[in-house]
């Protein structure tokens, strides 16, 4: 009965694929990936569910595959969410220290966090994450834990990430429709960054860009905290669509051309080169100009990075990125994409690796799985917190509570 609680499942319902990752959290706190299931996604556009019944079918397939591989029964998942409606901003909470000796207590810290989290948002918006950043004591910045310090006023910054409740519910309902409990919803970009970045990189300042099928997520860390997060509802699908339109080929063919001949930049050598594509019978069907193909692709990718760059500049976080940018998601497989990003963002860019996790190494070290692994990692943090905090009685209570909830 108690073993099941150490199984953590991350479920990402993406635009191009549904991916379920099963992690096993051992008693000493080590996380091990034991299962992986994936299915082609058909019911999702731009990261949001467009056809619930088809999406449900795909999710089921991925879950079943993961269950078989890990030999466990999946009851609850950490669900990844994304979509163009998600937005983030920073909010500051203030709290005066009233105790006679001016020592900041645990309660003061709780209060200031509570203040920072009270945000005036429209009723239809739901806060996905409210991530604590640094504390300020009497204006002194960069304090991670002010308990025990002396001061008159304590402040804290919180990065609030919110989205439209109904649209978030769509993804949750798909999972619930399969009798899966949703432990928590997690922003896909945040999950990817957890999978890719080491503590050192977070401390130094890094940018993670997850170029998915329908959306591109980005997260900026600096000084060990999340500075900024965002989503752009443009991804690999758009590249394929542009190619289909520009080269006048069917979408499936465009997808294939993208994978086989696509690069992120146009070099001079490609001028005049062509690719012949054949029809089902193996006869030549159409001649495609390779330069056009790459130009269309390069322009789209360029635009994605430019838009991200603009947003980061607006948020004033571009200068914090000292460890460089890390790419993941299917889009990071495009040849020369890192170089293109480097030119535009003016930081060092590389394709990220999902390190700091053990198990199924070869299968997992692929940029597409960063989000799924990150979800499991997020889950393991939550689990550890829960175990660490609660007493035995409380733990028992929640476990029993969960049993009732499931049945």
């Amino acid at each position: 009965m108690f073993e099941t609680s150490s199984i953590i499942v991350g479920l990402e319902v993406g635009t191009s694929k549904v991916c379920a990752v099963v992690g096993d959290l051992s008693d000493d706190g080590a996380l091990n990936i034991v299962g992986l299931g994936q299915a082609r996604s058909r019911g999702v556009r731009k990261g949001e569910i467009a056809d619930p019944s088809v999406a449900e079918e795909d999710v089921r397939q991925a879950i079943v595959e993961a269950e078989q591989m890990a030999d466990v029964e999946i009851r609850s998942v950490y669900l990844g969410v994304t979509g163009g409606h998600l937005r983030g901003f920073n909010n500051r909470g203030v709290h005066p220290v009233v105790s006679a000796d001016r020592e900041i207590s645990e309660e003061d810290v709780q209060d200031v966090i509570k203040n920072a989290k009270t945000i005036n948002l429209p009723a239809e918006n739901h806060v996905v994450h409210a991530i604590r950043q640094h504390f300020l004591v009497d204006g002194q910045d960069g304090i991670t834990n002010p308990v025990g310090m002396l001061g008159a006023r304590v402040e804290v910054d919180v990065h609030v990430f919110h989205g439209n409740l109904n649209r978030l519910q769509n993804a949750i309902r798909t999972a619930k429709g399969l009798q899966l409990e949703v432990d928590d919803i997690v922003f896909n970009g945040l999950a990817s960054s957890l999978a890719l970045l080491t503590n050192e990189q977070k401390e130094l300042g890094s940018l993670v860009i997850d170029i998915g099928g329908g959306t591109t997520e980005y997260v900026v860390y600096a000084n060990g905290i999340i500075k900024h997060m965002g989503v752009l509802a443009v991804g690999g699908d758009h590249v394929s669509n542009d190619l289909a339109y520009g080269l006048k080929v069917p979408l499936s063919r465009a997808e294939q051309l993208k994978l086989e001949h696509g690069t992120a930049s146009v070099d001079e050598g490609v001028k005049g080169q062509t690719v012949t594509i054949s029809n089902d019978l193996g006869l030549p069907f159409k001649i495609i100009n390779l330069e056009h193909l790459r130009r269309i692709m390069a322009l789209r990718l360029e635009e994605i990075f430019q838009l991200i760059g603009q947003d980061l500049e607006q948020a004033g976080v571009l200068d914090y990125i000292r460890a460089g940018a890390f790419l993941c998601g299917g889009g990071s497989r495009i040849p020369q994409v890192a170089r293109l990003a480097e030119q535009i963002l003016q930081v060092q860019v590389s394709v990220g690796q999902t390190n700091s996790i053990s198990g199924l190494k070869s299968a997992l070290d692929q940029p597409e799985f960063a989000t799924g692994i990150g979800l499991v990692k997020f889950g393991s943090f939550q689990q550890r917190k829960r175990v660490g905090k609660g007493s035995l009685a409380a733990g028992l209570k929640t476990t029993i509570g969960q049993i009732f909830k499931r049945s």
Partner: protein
Amino acid sequence: MEQNSPTQKAIKPLQNSLLIKVFGVGNAGISVMEWMIRNGISGAEFAAVNTETRSVAESSAAKKLHLETKLLRELGTGGDPEIGQALAEEHLPELRAACEGAGMVFIVAGLGGGAGTGISPVLARAAKEAGALALAFVTTPFACEGGRRQRLAQHGLEALKAAADGVVCLPNQKVFKLIDENTSVLETFKITGGMLAEAMCGVWRLLAQPGLIEIHFADLSALIRERHSESFFAVAEAMGPTRSRDVVDKLLAHPMLDDGQVLTESDALLVSLTGGPDLTMAEVNRVMERLNRHCEHAQAIMGAAIDESFRDRLTVTLIAARKVLERPEAEGKMASSQEDLDTQLLTRMTVGRRGSRFVPPPPSLPQDKMEQLLARQGTGSGRGRRGASKLKQTQLPLEIVAKGRFDKSEPTILRGEDLDVPTYLRRGVALN
């Protein structure tokens, strides 16, 4: 500007009590006007103009102008704008007299029929002769009403553009975006009529209502003069504490504005805010800030008015106008030949999307080259023109493909750009 100086002189002393006359022309026009009368627009004078006896007689307008000759036998024009026009020319002095004393004349008509199409241009001319600024608010017919009516409407629109100071045109076809399967015919016409009336009320409020930020009549005339090519309008209303945010969201999502794309392309913008006495400056600021972000290059005039009955409500009326670069004024006036109509028809329908394909090229042309091209276009033979219209015709289906797989999903709009449209099209990169 010089020609309208007498108008301004006449207006200035009575800035607050500027007299507006509303003319409902033809059956459609009269019914929209009736709508306005019923909804209690006070301070304007209404007049019904038609060739049919019945609709004029039934109208509740203060002034009734019945254009009549014996030839018609009280039956109307029978859908022939030439008869309408001839009648109007005949009664020109009468029309001019009716416009006398007004600072501004609103002409409401449904184009495509006989009366509205024929009379409105003449009326606009009469209004201008009488020293008033003529603003026309017209609808063009649904596509299902047949090609003839469409052509006539287009014809009338051209004539009206040449005659009036400003034309706000609502293609009925666009209303399909606003209605659902179950909307009845009656309701649909009510919606189009309502929208026209709303646009008129917006302009009227802008000028006549006591304002937080008043708009000068001269500003308005300077803005709309010479820009009567493409106007779009949208009205949005919101209530509650977050109204200033909601109202802009609604505006940007408005089907008439093609999700804010129109705003990016427009170069003149008129915004009229109406709120209750509780309207705050911060709210006005918030609305304008967001709208301005969408159209940085546009010349915007803004007015904020207070209406006692608008407690807790905020209405924003927005009229966006765009100068057509490819076809300057001189040609616009003579662009009434038959060949040109077809191209006009097509460009009008695709107007919202044209940005993706057509906006980038024009500025890159040097002035002399442009003139040369335009001259060639203007004097071109009939064959040349037909060729051009064919070329545009093929673009209609292609425009639809541009969004391909994202056709049905919610568009990704960032700073007024539709990111679902291929980047190379938006940036105007040519693939040869």
